[in-house]
């Protein structure tokens, strides 16, 4: 079974058993996070060395995906993962820096990019080699604060900064294009002095190829990852009801069966 399928099963399990929300947003970002963690130096992250690569999941409501990925890469043990969304656990429904190896708490949208820009400036100031990866949602790009950060990142030519947009095209209510269109995000990036790319956000190879290709960049990188909300579970795909609805026993069993069959 592919690592993405394993991670999806973990996400489904912890969201189902805790009756949490945001399953659709978590399933769409799996390959993006998996690609990032496959190329970073995990040892430096574990040891919290200052020249480590830094990952910020700015769409903090996909915490289940991040925690499942950390677990997959040995940065979080199974017992901790199983406390997701339980009383007295540090693993809440949004990303928290109280969790080991998590750089920054998120949950209010439009915060992660500014913090990522600060990290990239700090790495440059200290002449350290690490890169900063910020993962946002497409709906999150409605937040104006992002564009302040992108403007500065382009101006400062922060080649150590990489923004990956999980472009699943659905917001909280419906398609993002219906409320405020986010067409040609990569062109918008380019206009801000950022190298813009479009990839299949469910192809780890496409994502990692660009991450490797841009590793010595002299400009920031913006990768629009075209994804499907609810990816991997046919009855959840493109269905925005799964933004909030937790899968019950029947839905969970069906989802797991489908993932095991397909992989």
């Amino acid at each position, binding site marked *: 079974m592919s690592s993405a399928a394993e991670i999806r099963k973990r996400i489904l399990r912890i969201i189902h058993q805790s009756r949490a929300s945001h399953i659709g947003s978590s399933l769409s970002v799996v390959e993006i996070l998996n690609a990032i963690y496959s190329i970073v130096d995990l040892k430096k992250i574990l040891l919290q060395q*200052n020249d480590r690569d*830094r990952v910020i999941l700015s769409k903090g409501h996909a915490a289940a995906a991040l925690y499942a990925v950390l677990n997959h890469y040995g940065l979080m043990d199974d017992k901790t993962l199983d406390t997701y969304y339980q009383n007295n656990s540090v693993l809440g429904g949004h990303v928290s*820096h109280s969790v080991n190896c998590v*750089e*920054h*708490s*998120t*949950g*209010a949208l439009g*915060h992660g*990019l*500014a*913090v*990522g*820009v*600060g*990290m*990239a*400036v*700090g*790495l440059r*100031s*200290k002449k*350290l080699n690490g890169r900063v990866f910020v993962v946002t949602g497409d709906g999150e790009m409605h937040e104006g*604060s992002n564009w*302040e*950060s992108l*403007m*500065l990142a382009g*101006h400062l030519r922060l080649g150590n900064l990489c923004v990956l947009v999980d472009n699943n095209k659905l917001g909280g209510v419906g398609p993002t294009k219906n409320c405020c269109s986010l067409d040609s995000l990569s062109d918008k990036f380019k206009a801000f002095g950022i190298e813009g790319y479009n990839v299949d956000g469910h192809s780890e190879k496409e994502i990692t190829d660009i991450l490797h290709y841009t590793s010595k960049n002299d400009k920031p990188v913006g990768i629009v990852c075209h994804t499907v909300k609810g990816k991997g579970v046919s009855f959840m795909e493109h269905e925005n009801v799964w933004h909030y609805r937790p899968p019950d026993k029947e839905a969970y069993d069906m989802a797991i069966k489908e993932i095991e069959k397909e992989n």
Partner: protein
Amino acid sequence: MRNVFFDILKKYMRKDKTLFLVTADMGLGLLDSFEEEFPDRFLNVGIAEQNMVGVCAGLCNLGFKPFCYTISNFLIQRCFEQIRNDVCMHKYPITLVGTSTGFDNGLLGATHQVLDDIGCLKALPNMAIYSPATNNIIEPILKEIFSNKGPAYVRIGKSSIDLPRNSNNINFFITEKPTANILLVTHGTSLKNCMDAADKIKDTDIYCINKIKPMDKLFAEFVRKYNDIIVIEDHFGSSGLYNSICQNLCENDLQDLKIYSLSPSDNYEEVVGDSDYFADKFGYSSLKIKDLVKKIQQKRYDD
């Protein structure tokens, strides 16, 4: 006071390589020398305050201790969520430096009258709030901020009082007479009006609260000896120092003390004016402070 603050900061930036100064395009003629001397530890992010605060949080992740500077009306309210989530929640050692407070820029209109900044920040856990009244207290405040290792706000108004402190505390008595039974309590630029008023009246002390949060622990101990307390400030009393002192008195069973607030009324003003105009309008000019003290003294005499 602003120049004094930045002169001292520069001195510390030379010694401490973790200090980093970030501005949102503010400080004409003031910060050029920082950019020249510390090219790797100075950043002007443009007129983008939310981004500035987030960038400072990212710098903390690398081990820097950023100073985040613009005028207070752009620094606090606009960035409230960034200050809450990215700074206070992470307990990051970011010092927010806000200038042009109270009615310093009163003639520029209500958007630039900063009367609610302390109230906003008081709500946030882990945030220390300073409102220095004298030039001499700036360095002790900075030393305290460095040793506390958490978020802080320094509210820097337009004033310049040189007055050595007579105690090791950040808060201290400006005047303390054995016979005094009325206490003027103030912070920031309002100290000047208090000093001018007290100069002409007897039996009145002045206590200067340069640190608003956490609240002064000694206050409840010495305040018992007074009959009346007058809190004077260029900030809404309902969420400013007056509010903190009321809470402090209640928590220490000191409800019998009579307390007065001389501060801007709870409103955004439609007319403009300078700080002297508003101090007179809201009753905290030196003359009006003196009038209230005399009234209290007269009432006591009549009783």
